[in-house]
């Protein structure tokens, strides 16, 4: 019997309380995306190698390939079970409910400062290049130019944050959306990390929360549906479990805790994990700076 081990509360609620319908949007080895027939929102089924995430159910399989599910297959719900054509019948009743609850930004930032330095050094050494972290040997002019633009635009956004300016925040954030190689562009990943920090309770950067939400209203055509959903959730403080663990470790853990959590984030996608981590670090550095002013 294929069943959901754990799942995002909102997704489980959709299955139980609504007549959820949709179609398969895209299929990978460890995840498949379903596009809701109602509002086009993306929901995900992921194998047990993946971590909990917004709009995602973790299922008791190692691979999805043997299911032979294809793009556009119909998705429906019957008796709390999610059905994809006659290829998958997924029981959801016993799934553990999960919801991202970001930690509170601490009043004492002593260990946070040490952890941020350690994490940055580890990313310098082990982070994946090709996105936010520029490669010393770019494979093409396209990669080199993308890195240049990412650096330029993230610097502008950082500057806006640490100067506590609001005028250009939306523009600089929007300019990053869709920029970069990969399924989730590097600019999007960076914003996911940054939005996470902005949504920490007591975060000195939380003054930008509403702007994050307004950015989401502008970017739907600028990136693909999968990345858009991830960004939209992050703009409301909902991120995957490994990102939560990293933030928590940096805020409240030791250097060892931080590196252990970072390794899991760096393993996301190709350069996505590195890009997300760098977004987090940018936000945390802005918080440290702004916190000091208070």
């Amino acid at each position, binding site marked *: 019997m294929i069943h959901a081990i754990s799942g995002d509360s909102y997704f489980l609620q959709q299955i139980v309380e609504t007549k959820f319908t949709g179609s398969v949007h895209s299929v990978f080895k460890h995840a498949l995306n379903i596009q809701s027939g109602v509002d086009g929102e993306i929901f995900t089924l992921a194998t047990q190698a993946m971590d909990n995430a917004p709009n995602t159910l973790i299922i008791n399989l190692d691979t999805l390939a043997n299911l032979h599910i294809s*793009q556009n297959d119909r998705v429906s719900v019957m008796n709390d079970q999610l059905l994809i054509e006659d290829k998958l019948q997924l029981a959801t009743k016993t799934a553990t409910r999960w919801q991202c609850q970001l930690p509170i930004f601490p009043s004492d930032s002593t260990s946070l400062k040490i952890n941020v330095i350690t994490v940055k050094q580890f990313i310098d050494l082990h982070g994946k290049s090709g996105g936010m972290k520029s490669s010393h040997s770019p494979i093409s002019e*396209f990669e080199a130019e993308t890195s240049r633009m990412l650096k330029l635009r993230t610097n502008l956004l950082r500057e806006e944050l640490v100067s506590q300016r609001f005028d250009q925040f939306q523009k600089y954030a929007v300019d990053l959306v869709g920029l970069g*190689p990969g399924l989730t*562009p590097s600019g999007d990943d960076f914003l996911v990390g940054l939005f996470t920090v902005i949504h920490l309770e007591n975060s000195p950067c939380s003054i930008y929360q509403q702007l994050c939400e307004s950015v989401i209203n502008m970017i739907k055509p600028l*990136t*693909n549906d999968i990345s858009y959903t991830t960004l939209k959730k992050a703009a409301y403080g909902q991120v995957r479990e490994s990102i939560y663990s990293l933030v928590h470790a940096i805020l409240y853990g030791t250097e060892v805790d931080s590196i252990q959590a970072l390794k899991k984030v760096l393993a996301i996608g190709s350069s996505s994990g590195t890009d997300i981590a760098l977004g987090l670090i940018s936000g945390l550095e802005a918080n440290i700076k702004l916190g000091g002013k208070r």
Partner: protein
Amino acid sequence: MSIKVVIKRNTYFDSVSLMSLSTKANQIEGVEQAIIGMGTEMNKGVIRNVGLMTPEVEEATAGDLMIIVKTANADQTESAYLAVEELLTNKNTAQAKSDIKYATIDSAAQGIPDANFAVISVNGAFAVREARKALENDLHVMLFSDNVSVEDEVELKTFAHEKGLLMMGPDCGTAIIGNTGLCFANAVRKGNIGIVAASGTGSQEVSVRVHDFGGGITQLIGTGGRDLSKEVGGIMMLDGIKALDADEATKVIVLVSKPPEASVEKKVLAQIKECSKPVVVYFIGGNEEAVVAAGGQFAKTSKEAALKAVLLAGIDEAGINKRALNLPLIEEVRAKLSPEQKYIRGLFCGGTLCDESMYIAMEKLDNVYSNIQKNPDFLLKDINVSQEHTFIDFGDDDFTNGKPHPMIDPSSRIERFLQEAKDPSVGVIVMDFVLGFGSHEDPVGVMLPAMIEAKQLAEKEGRHLEIIGYVLGTDLDTPRLEDQVKKLIDAGVTHASSSTNAGLLAREIVLKGENHE
């Protein structure tokens, strides 16, 4: 310039696949630039900036996959695009194939009846069982795992020998089989030289030098580091020599190892006598007379081994750049060193590269210490503290216990490098940087800040610090050899063109007039 653009509507590849495909596409012959990515407005902006915008690209949307191939002229465009398309197709096929997971070697052998080779990398406790199963299924084995007892190794190799199969390993980290690099290996030209090696980086170095001298490789058969011990008796090296002797494509055979145990060396040399093809023998610190008496070609260094092999393989000597030692540079550096700066510190990722430089130093210097010295008098008392001339193999178990190999994670070497660079008695620091499959994505880049910092510190203290760097790799490797070398040179590091030259340069610089060749 000619550009071909194909837009695939609503097509999604995961990020890892997209990045890997882009890298491979940019390496296709004739391709000046290839872009495989999602058709977002921002990516289209980048494409505009690099001058590749076309009406088709303009129409792509965020959910579309864009494939853009730029070549120098129109004749090449279609074939280059087809090669990129083939990569995409292969990726899909490979994904489909890799989706089939086999729980056991038995089921894998049944599921893929054409397979004749198994690469095994599991915990040492299970490695013997899995290797035996593979051999029982008539598969040649490359066993990457270590922590296998010598008794088990002998049993596996004897069983393989009886079945006419290769049992490469345990602890076999390098092989090139059918032009495919396995575990740690470099991208080298296909040719007519076969290698049997009991040493990983030693065989990488010889294969890379062969490539540099214009030759190519048929097969590189690894034996595992313990094969030439008395207990194992060289079973795999003997079988490897026989296999290459029987291989029509192989015209010359090269043997690479640390010196074998005396009785095993006799067996190997006896096998050379039987061999119908010329055999070059590079046993570090080995005995020339015995090799020559057996009809072999003795090589004192890895560079000499490669050079002899390519000449025997028919490469025209006149066309070979032998990468002569830069003698004026030696004099120039000597003049910069103070009398106190007497010592070499060798910090290596590759064990055989460390060994080669150490043996070169030992030819003229008495006080050479290491964590891999055979002479117990010169074994470092504390591996974290250097003594006089010190050569460290960071790939040795002392440093890798519970940590990745320094070719993957060079962090332990960075720390030690900075420590050595502060020592005022140090004149020369020599290091290797290994490119190729399995290695760090930017081995020079990761050391660069430390090397610059060390140079600046020495300058502040009014002394010259000579850093010699050798990049083991070919022009076909990723990252690009040329870029890695440029980084070294730009940072003021002296680039050695081979492992041999790295050792010679270091030794000659600190000799300062004594025994100067």
